[in-house]
């Protein structure tokens, strides 16, 4: 059985239909297609005058277009705006053609350009749902993006905190391991400068921990002032520091710098209840002293040099030399050694309250 449709019914089902007669003259366009151009634009004009076909390629005759039935069409308006349309064609009984068209991917542009409304689309057309989805997705993506930014900032802050000594703002032991591993990977030459404060325990004992904290913050600042961008400053323990001097292996020059560092650290430091004075012992160990090196070995050797400096008396600088006795890598033994040293401490320079 054949079904015949009134034009109005066809326009409702396919608001972008286009009908051409056997000669290729346009005899009718659906209401939404009509909206895309001025009144009278389509009627009586030749299909191929108004549209250029991209698929099938450059088709120019009604007969050729009829052959294209069942294949996807792609066509443009010849004048501006050259909106691209897609669709398909069916042959009518009278030799004419019926094209059903749509805006395809360019529907968002078309809606803006031709000021289209929901009623311009067939009920079965999912364009409205697509529009909805696009807007909802953009809103959701924006919310997700904001969350990602906040999480990223929080992660950076947490990492920064995890690698920072909260009292002095210098790096901590965890950061030290990372930096040494990076230098190892990249084959960077460097010198380790181990710094151990002298008379610090006395400050803590006689003037209190608050004063001790002020001293630690002060010496951290002094060390920062005397190092460069590429150097890494680490507080390794209570009054122990380690500086990784990247790219510097000239021990003669570094010995001089270490001496200057000690002189700077010996300047009296103002604390809330007066002033106090500390000094420092420094051990040096450079990667240039070895054919190859490992992080653990470098740390042990700079520790041995620092231990030698301590034994040589206060305020000494000692560079590592083979055969130096390690202070003992074992943390417990090291703690014992530190305690023994603190007990015997009472040299010429002392922490003293003013007046």
């Amino acid at each position: 059985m054949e079904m015949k449709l009134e034009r109005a019914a066809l326009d409702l089902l396919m608001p972008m239909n286009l009908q051409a007669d056997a000669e290729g003259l346009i005899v009718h366009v659906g209401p939404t297609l009509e909206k895309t151009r001025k009144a009278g634009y389509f009627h009586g004009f030749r299909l191929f005058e108004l549209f250029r076909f991209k698929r099938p390629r450059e088709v120019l005759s009604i007969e050729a277009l009829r052959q294209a039935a069942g294949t996807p069409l792609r066509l443009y308006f010849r004048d501006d705006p050259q909106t691209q349309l897609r669709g398909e064609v069916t042959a009518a009984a009278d030799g004419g053609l019926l094209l059903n068209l749509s805006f395809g991917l360019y529907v968002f542009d078309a809606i803006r350009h031709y000021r289209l409304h929901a009623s311009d689309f067939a009920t079965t057309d999912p364009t409205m749902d697509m529009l909805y989805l696009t807007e909802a997705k953009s809103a959701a993506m924006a919310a997700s993006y904001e969350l990602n930014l906040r999480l990223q900032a929080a992660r950076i802050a947490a990492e920064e905190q995890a690698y920072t000594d909260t009292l002095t703002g210098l790096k901590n032991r965890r950061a030290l391991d990372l930096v040494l591993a990076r230098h190892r990977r990249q084959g960077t030459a460097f010198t380790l400068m181990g710094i151990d404060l002298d008379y610090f325990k006395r400050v803590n004992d006689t003037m209190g921990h608050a004063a001790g904290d002020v001293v630690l913050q002060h010496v951290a600042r002094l060390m920062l002032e005397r190092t460069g961008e590429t150097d890494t400053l680490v507080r390794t323990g209570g009054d122990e520091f380690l500086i990784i001097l990247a790219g510097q292996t000239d021990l003669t020059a570094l010995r001089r710098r270490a001496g200057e560092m000690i002189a700077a650290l010996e300047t009296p430091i103002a604390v809330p209840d007066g002033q106090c004075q500390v000094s420092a012992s420094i051990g040096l160990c450079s990667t240039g002293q070895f054919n190859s090196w490992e992080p653990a070995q470098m740390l042990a050797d700079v520790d041995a040099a620092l231990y030698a400096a301590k034994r040589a008396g206060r305020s000494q600088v000692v560079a590592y030399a083979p055969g130096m006795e390690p202070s003992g890598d074992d943390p417990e033994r090291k703690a014992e050694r530190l305690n023994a040293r603190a007990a015997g401490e009472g040299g010429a320079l002392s922490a003293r309250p003013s007046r």
Partner: protein
Amino acid sequence: MHGLINKSLQCFLRDTYGAGAWAEVAQAADVDPAGFEAMLIYDDALTVDVVAAAAAFLDKPRDCVLEDLGTYLVSHPNLEPVRRLLRFGGATFVDFLHSLDEMPDRARLAVPQLDLPRLELLPVDEASYRLDCEWHLPGFEHVLVGLLRTMADDYGALVLLDCLPPSDGLAHVGIRLIDNGYASGRSFDLAAGG
């Protein structure tokens, strides 16, 4: 509860009563004053606590707070996308009402984890409808009343709305249509920002 819902509750309190009000409510409900993240999921009980704390702080019945929230969702400039998305439901207020049962599925297209109330519109007579609503946030029908009242304004329609007593675990909203939008409503252009 999805963070989007909690976050809109937080923004409602902040935008309507000020940042101080939100801080007080957050403290009373034991919520991080920094607020909710829109794209995370929270415990349902937290939402109930915030609503209760807000009602206590504002010294208003909970139902009024929820109705004001519904109004806020579709009228505050910060939430213009919500109004726009709802307007996709149809060209008239009645079309919009009929689109409500698709709303949860539409929302899930965009945010798969977003669980919205199941809604069903039942015609009562020529000019009246009943909206059945099933959800796990008690009193949600009051949010709907605020939202529908504002959307009716948006469409330029004149309606009477009231919450009917709940039955069979469903909340009900009665809708009586006086005029389906011959007064001029707010404009709605399909092209966003255009």
